[in-house]
């Protein structure tokens, strides 16, 4: 039981790490939010599952915590993305990168 719990906690920690890595590696805010939200949600859910395996008596409360995380984490990230969108932040695209480079060349000339 404890072993299964530990395995789940390690998996959750790995996903949290991947989320942090995604925050560093992604090119712009929207992609960073994507990487952050998903990995952190599943990571914390896995950690909660691991804790539930180690302490079966806490199961209902852990379920409530998981429910609140599932409800609030996407809402928070959507709100940040919406604020950025309404502030006029253009999403990064591959073609826009090329456009920017060409624009910079035009300004130079």
């Amino acid at each position, binding site marked *: 039981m404890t072993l299964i719990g530990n395995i789940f906690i390690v998996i959750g920690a790995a*996903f949290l790490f*991947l989320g942090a*890595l*995604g925050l560093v*590696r*992604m*090119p*712009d805010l*929207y*992609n960073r*939010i*994507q*990487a952050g*939200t*998903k*990995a952190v*949600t*599943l990571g914390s859910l896995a950690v909660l599952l691991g804790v539930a395996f180690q302490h079966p*008596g806490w199961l*209902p*409360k852990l*379920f*409530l915590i998981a429910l609140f995380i*599932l*409800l609030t984490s*996407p*809402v928070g*990230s*959507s709100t940040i*993305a*919406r604020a950025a*969108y*309404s502030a006029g932040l253009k*999403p*990064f*695209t*591959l073609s826009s990168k090329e456009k920017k480079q060409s624009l910079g060349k035009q300004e130079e000339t």
Partner: protein
Amino acid sequence: MTTNNSSPQASKEKLERTKKLANQARTVMLKSYKNHLMPRFLRFFHFLLGQYRKIDLENKPQQRRFVIATTLFFIMWLMLVGTLSFSEIFVGLMVALFTTWLSYDRLAFLESIKLNRTTPLHILRYLQVFVVALLRANIDMARRVLSPRLPINPALVEVQTQLKSPLGKLILANSITLTPGTLTVDVVGDRLQVHWVDSTSGMDLECATHAIAESFEYHLQEFLE
């Protein structure tokens, strides 16, 4: 204070008088119980029965709101308490009713839930689809983050939804945020602005709707308006 100065006979008389008074009081109470209280209880019972018969979850959204909110609060109470003793259940019911009564005006969004016998089943099916999508999203994201080339092709696309209620839109937007490569940015009317990491398969509205929202919508429509 005892009355020492009076004779024993007087005290005996007093005792009889009090006994008589007590008898009278008892008969009066019994009478009032039979004539007033008992019918009142019966009437209250009938009133409750009538109220219970009047509950119409199909057509009266306000009652539906009340019932859904009370059950939600009650389940939350039971989960927080963690025991199933009678006193906890009773107090939990009272607290759930009271909380619903306090917050009734602000719970209008609960009216959009359809209540049938099959509602829990549909919710479970939706959860299953959702969990599978969440796992796939994370594996997909891990692959993208870990690969050295960073294979992304992000763009903003529009998605159309048939859900009309705010709660349905909220759950749909949340699900889209947590599924492979998509992030809800804004909701305007029945259009959702979605940021898509890998938008190679199609950029127009129908393609995006088909790829992102349709599977969730199909399950959500079963229990939401």
